[in-house]
Each structure stands twice: as C-alpha cells, then as structure tokens.
C-alpha cells in the first residue's frame, strides 16, 4: 500500500513513530512527578495547617484530596435524593487514595477533551491559562534571539570559512570563547557590567513604570529592559552557530563543486551562496530543534532577569508538586519538540536532493 506514493508513505511512517514517542512521553511526564515520596496535599497542609485544629485539618485535607482528584469517588445520592459524587472511605473512615493508574486514565480522558486540568496551587487556575500567561514572555525573550543568533552566526561562520586569514584568526577564538560560556555566567557578567557598573540598562524585569499594551511608555521600557537578556543569549548562540557553520563551510570548500565553480570564474558571492546552501543543512536542523525546545523556557535567563516565563512556571510547579502544571508544561514541550523534529525530517527530505532521491527510490530514510 502507498508504494507508488513514497513521499506520503514516508510522512505517514514518520508521523506514526512520532505518535508512539508522544504516548511514551506523556506517560513518563505523568508518572515521573508522582514517583517522589511526597504529595502536593501534604505540602499544602503543612504550610496552611499551622494554627488549625486537627479536625479542621482533616476536613481541609479531604477537601483538597477530592478537589485534586487524588481519591476514589463513587456515585451516590444526597439527603435530597440528588445524584452526587462522594469519596470512597476505608473501614477507618479515611478516604481511599486513587492509584496512579486510575489518575492516569482520568488524565488521558481529560487530555483528549483538550482539558489540561487545574493547578493545585493557583486557586483553580486552568493549566492552559498558566501556560497562556507564561508563553508570551518565553517567546518574546527567545524567538528573536534564536532567529537573529542563527542568522548572524551562520553568516559570520560562512564568511570566516571562506575568507580565512586574519578575519578568521580573530573571529574563530572569539566565537569559540563565546559559545563555551554558560548562559548564566554570561548573563550575570552583562548585568554586573552594563547594569550595575555603567548603569546603562536595567538589571531585571520585563518593563518598568507602565502598563503592558500598545503604549509608548511600555514599549520603550520593554525595549530598554530587553537589551541585556537578548545579548546574554544572542552572543552565545551566534558564537555556537558560527563555529558549526565555519567547520561545515571549510569542509564544503574542499569539495569538487566549489572548486569547479571557482574555476568557472563565478563571482565570489555566487560561490559563497552555493557554499552556504550546502553547509546549511545541519544548521537548519539545529534551528528547528532550538525553536522546538524554546518553549520550555530559558529558566536560567528568566531567573537572572526576573522574567516570568515558562521556565519559572515549571520550576515553581516542580518544587510544589503541582502535578497538573508539570504535566501541562511538559506536554507543551513534548509536542513542540516533536513537531520541530517532524518538520525537520520532512524539510530535510525536500531540501536535500540526496535524501529526496532516496525517498523517491522507495528506500525510505
């Protein structure tokens, strides 16, 4: 079946594998936070319980257990004969906890309906709302940085590979140095120098003295606050990309087609573009993967600059065992990484003539 349509077959095969990966990831995302020795209700009760009597505590604890779906429920009727759900209790009258598997089934059912559940901590806030509030910060911080870092890094890398000489001798060690800097060290150095010593830029926060919206005080303030976080990621990313591009470029320069193009006397820019196109394939993969993982947030950068992005939301949820938020955020990350990978697979198949030929000959990948 589908043998005469190798491309469709390839795409379907890939999609199938990604779906299996997705299922495995969702299962792991669900079980991992629950493997620890503590549960969220204990954490809440320990913090909220001081100054309450034991009876009040028991009532509250049962309320939370029920609200969070951590106990077994059964259908029942109240005094007025209305259908209600009540907790299943053991012989001592204690609520029976729902097993992880039972919770998993409930979770899958909710997921299918597009319901990611409700945060335990955020006063019945929907997980989708938690994500919705954090994602704009994450995207605003990272998308421009990744795109610019990628473009600038690759251009400079290709140039260094082609020009060599003094430019490369200066450029290569600088790029290597930048790319091997950890984000947080670089971020802190930028803050120490440009925000604290020189005072040119604000050291933290996303904006100041304004209410977010399309108004000048906010936009100018946001832009001013954006400079340091941007450069803390941009320079390192551009450095890394440049190194990769430079090595690929040097490799491609030694190939026959470049030599041939040079012998034909083509213009330097034309040769450079040939070079660029061929050296770019692994770089495109890298770009797609960075865009996919971007959604997970740049936790360290968010912490250094007090940006309220997804990384912070995730850290907050993990420290408090807020299962629904952990599951929701990891689900979003899983989906975006898988989509990015899938896109790369498909893109490469179309962009790279060698892969395309392989697919068309029915060999698959």
């Amino acid at each position, binding site marked *: 079946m589908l043998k005469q349509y190798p491309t469709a077959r390839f795409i379907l095969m890939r999609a199938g594998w990604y779906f299996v990966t997705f299922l495995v990831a969702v299962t792991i995302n669900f079980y991992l936070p629950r493997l620890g020795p*503590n549960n969220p209700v*204990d*954490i809440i*009760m*320990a*913090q*909220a*319980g*001081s*100054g*309450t009597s*034991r*009876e*009040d505590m028991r009532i*509250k604890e049962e*309320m939370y257990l029920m*609200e969070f779906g951590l106990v077994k429920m059964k259908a029942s009727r109240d005094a007025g004969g209305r259908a209600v759900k009540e907790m299943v209790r053991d012989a001592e009258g*204690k609520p029976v906890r729902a097993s992880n598997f039972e919770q998993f089934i409930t979770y899958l059912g909710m997921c299918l309906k597009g319901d990611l559940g409700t945060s335990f*901590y*955020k*006063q*019945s*806030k929907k997980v989708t709302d938690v994500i919705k*509030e*954090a*994602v*704009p*910060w994450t*995207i*605003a911080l990272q*998308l*421009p940085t990744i*795109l610019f870092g990628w*473009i600038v890094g690759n251009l400079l890398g290709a140039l260094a590979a082609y020009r060599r000489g003094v430019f490369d001798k200066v450029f290569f060690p600088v790029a290597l140095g930048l790319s091997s800097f950890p984000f947080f060290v670089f971020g802190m150095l930028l803050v120490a120098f440009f925000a604290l010593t020189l*005072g040119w830029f*604000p*050291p*933290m926060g996303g*904006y*100041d*003295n304004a*209410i*977010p*919206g399309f*108004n000048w*005080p906010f*936009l100018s*303030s946001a832009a001013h606050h954006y400079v340091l976080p941007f450069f803390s990621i941009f320079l390192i990313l551009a450095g890394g990309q440049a190194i990769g591009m430079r090595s690929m470029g040097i490799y491609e320069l030694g190939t026959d087609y470049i030599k041939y193009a040079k012998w034909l006397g083509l213009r330097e820019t*034309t040769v450079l*573009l040939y070079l660029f*196109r061929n050296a770019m394939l692994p770089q495109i993969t890298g770009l797609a993967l960075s865009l996919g993982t971007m959604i997970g947030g740049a936790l360290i950068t968010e*912490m250094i600059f*007090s940006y*309220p992005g997804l990384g*912070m*939301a995730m850290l*907050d949820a993990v*420290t*408090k*065992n807020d299962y629904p938020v952990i599951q929701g955020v990891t689900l979003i990350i899983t989906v975006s990484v898988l989509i990015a990978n899938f896109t790369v697979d498909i893109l490469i198949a179309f962009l790279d003539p060698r892969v395309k030929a392989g697919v068309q000959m029915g060999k698959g990948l």
Partner: protein
Amino acid sequence: MMKVKRSWLKTLAAGAAVVGLGLASCKSGDGAAGETGFRRDKTLYLAGSQWGDPNTFNPMAESWQAAWPVNDKFNLMYEPLIAYNSLDGKFEPLLGTLVSHDTQKVVVDLNPKAKWSDGQPVTSTDVKFVFEIGRRFPGAATAYAIRFVSSIETEMKEEGGERLTFVVNKADRNNPLVILDHLQAIRIVPAHVFEKLLAENNNDLSAVQKFKIDQNPVVSGPYNIHHYNNERIIVKRRDDYWGNEALYEGKMPAPEYIIHPIYKNNDHFAIALQQGRLDASQTYMPRIWLKKKDQVGTWYDKAPYFVPGAMPMLLINTTKAPLNDKNFRRAMAAAISYADIKELAVSGYASDMQPGLIMPQGLEEKFFSAGDAASFGVAHNPDLAKKILEEAGYKSVLKPDGTLDYMTDKADNKLPQLTITVPAGWSDWEAMVKIAEKGLRLAGIDVRENPVDGGLYWPALPSGNFDLIMHKPAPSVTPSLPWTRFEAVMSSRDWAPVGGDNKMNENQGRYNQPGSPEYNARVDELIGLIPRMENEADIIAAYQELNRIFMQDQPAIPLCYLPEQFYEFSTKIWKNWPTSDNPYAPPLLPWVGASTKILWNLEPAK
C-alpha cells in the same frame, strides 16, 4: 538564492509579529488601557510580600492562595478591626477601637465613619459575617479563630456607633490572648457582597472562594487593586478612603500608586534597592552596611540594624534515641556557637543569644530572668558539651586521622548518624545549620546537614519525619508573644505519635508525651493558664517557670534572634521612613499592622 533570502525575511517578519503579539498579550487583570507611565515621585515601589504569580484577590480564599495585598495580615485593601504596634505593644484604632480586654471578653467600638468603597457603612453585620462564617463552613479561613469566641454581641452606644463584645469561649480554648491576635489579623469583608455571592452559589463556600474578586472589589482600605500580571501588582490610592478624615485629619497617603514587582531572584531586591528602583524591601541582604552609600537605610543605623522578633531554631525529634535523652539535647545546645551564627550566618543582624524561649529585649524583656538563664540554661561551651556527654555515657569514636567517625551510647551500641533537615536554597538557614553542624561535630556528636527540597521539608515538619529540623515557630510579632512561641514548641494539647498520617502543627518534635512516665503536666497547665492570668506578677512568674522547664528539658535549640521582617528602605525617592531615631511606626513594610501609617508620613525626597 533569492528564494532563501525571501523566506528569511518572512520568518523575520513573522518573528517580529509574534513578539509584538506576545508583549501585547502580557496584559491581564484590571488593565487601564492607554494608561501611560507612573510618575516615579508619586509611586512607591515595595517588594518581598509576593513571590509567585498572583492567583486571587479574594479575601475569603485561604491566605496562602491570595495575592498581595490580600494575603497575610496586610491592610491596604481590607482592614482588620484594630492594628497592633509591635514596638510598644499597643493597639491602634482602625475599623474599630479596642475598648477593653480581660479574661471574659474583648470589647471593640466600631468606627461610625468606616465605609466600604461602594459607600455602604462598615457595620457589625460585616464583622459578624467574617467571624461566624467559620462556624457555618469548616473550610472557611476563620474556622479556627471562631473556636476561641463563644458569641459576638452587639449594641448601639448612646452616643452613636456600634459596640462589639467578643465573649471568650470558656468551653473550648478559653484563651482571650489569641482573640486579640485574631482581631488584629482577620480582615473584615463586605457582608453584602459575599452573602449575595453565597446565595448565588447555592451556599457553597468553596465555589465563592474560587472567584478572583479582582475587578473593582468593594474594599474598606486606602488602596484598591489597579492592575496585575505575573511581573507586578499595582494598587491605586482611593482618594475617598474613609480613614483620611476619621484617622488622619484629612490627609491622604503620599503615594498615588504602590507597585509590588515580583522578583524571581533574591539578589534583585538588593540591586533594585541600591539603584532606587525599589523604595523598601523585606528580604535578607547580607552586609547591609555596604549599601548605606546608596542611601539604603535600616531601623538602627548600626548593628544589629534590625529589631529582633522571631527565633529560628532546631526542633528536635524527642521520640528518637539518643535525642529522647535531655542530657544529650543539652549537650547539643552547649556545642553550638551562637556568636558564630550571629556573625557569620546572619551578618550580625541579631543581638546576643540567651538560653530559653523568651527574648531578653523589647516587649518580652519583662518576662526574662537573667538569673534563670545563667543557672538553668546552657550557653555555648564546648567543654561543658563534652562533659555532659561523657557523664551520660556517650562516647565518640574517632577515625585514624582524628576526625569523628561515629558515637556510641552507654551500652556501647553504635548510634546512627543524625541529620538536620533544612530547606535547600534558604541560604541564611543553611548557613546557620552549617555552623551548628560544625560545633556539634567538634563536640563529638555525629550529625550532618540534610538540605531538602521544599516539597520534602514542609511535609516532614508536621509528620515528625526528622531528627533535627530548622523551623521558625511564631514567625510574626503578635500580641500573644511569647505565649505563642511556648505553645508552638512545647504544647502537647494535640499530641500525635510519629508515623502514619499523624500530624502535629505545634510541638512537631513530640516533646512531653501525655501518658508517658516522663510527662510533665505542669507544661500544658502553664500554657493553658497564662492567657487567662490578669496579674502581671503571676504572668511573669508563670513564663519564668515555663522557661526554666524549657531550659532544663531543651526540646528545641533556638539559634539566633532575627527580625520579623528585614525592613530596609531607600531614601532616594521617598524620605521620612520610621527609624530608631524617629520611631513613629514599627519597622515593617507600610501594609502590616500599625506600620500602614508610614504611607501618610512619607515625603518625596526632592
């Protein structure tokens, strides 16, 4: 080639569009669209009372879920009946005035001028609603408080205005002291708003607790919510606040807006304060004296810089050998260098430690006995620690290199290594524990620090699942101190063993088990009696007796005295903050208790 270029441009354009959208969608809450910047000289920036994303501004929600300034006992939007001044121990008028308090009742007069922001007067109906709801619903925040009150009686005074009498519930707790705590902490909410919400929701409180109450809520306080998102919370001055006339002679608070930025990183508080981005903060900042040049101020101009208010301490699991031996516990207390903790762990922000649970200064000073501390308590003395251990039969076994290997008890059994549980990342607590660990090991006690995630620390505390654990009982300065501290450390009223689902919210170390041969009934008797004593000499004698028992039994080891809040301010934009030279309000951020009046006293620096 051109194709590649064009698709880049497209990607770029798409990226820019997403960024624009992203920034625009950061808006939430009561956003004033088109609003331009906040004038710095009319805006007060304060931080440290809101750490995570703001969840709800519902005063009926549980305090830990509500966002600043609706959480805790902050008075900006909703106000309590009276405000406590932790400097002089007096009660200041707010929605009401404290008339009298004794062992039978607490009497408060409502201020007839008090009004809600919708123009309705604040009446006894509102007060009764918020307290009595604790009787109607076990899940209500006041469910615990109302157990101390048997009834709230109201009467009209001849000269006008309502008088409220909180009758002490003798059948249950019989504790008038805690009623005072609650009167200055429980904020009154508009009954006409919440009764309506309850009626609309089938009388289901948990449904009402889920409302966010963030759109023009009906409040009685001087500020109301203006805008919020995950980056900051902004409240705006209410120019028609009733208290301006009734309490402040027609004056308005100086700042028009108060902005509470939500920082994700401890260092940001210090940086922001030094740069004048923040006007006051309540977070621990090491070496505060280095920040003076940046116009950062504290209560005292020199060490200890802050006013002590709370005691971080090591709670001891007294059910576990060898910690069930009070000699062992006393040896531990003698092994720890409190001076090192003060100097190295908390930048010298504390006065010298005295043995016992009573602070030797401030409002507690009158209960403190230096003679008792000297004769019953153990101070830092490594030789004494070794001597006590030796006399009790404990031996330390050393490795060939002379360092400690393990300990044995008097029957020569090897003792397991003890651990001190401390929340990882709480840097000042971790530093205290490290110094304690060093002293204990030098004295030959095999103990190690055990830093754990918050998710493990909090449940370990009530379940008793620890050897030693860092904790700060009675963290805020309330009218009932030091009684609350004794109750939190020594009371066996709700005693439950370690293990299973058993939890204790006070005396987590399970000291003084009722029914056991060592049970000392006098401890619980004194804890029960002190709140009902009227004669000051009796109260002093009772506290001193209780403190002697504490020092002899050592169920916990206090490590230092720290302030209730690390009150730090900047004079770059606003001046006239209260200090020890100008002590018009307690050293707390201007939304706690009697410190709210700072807002009326601040002046622009330029």
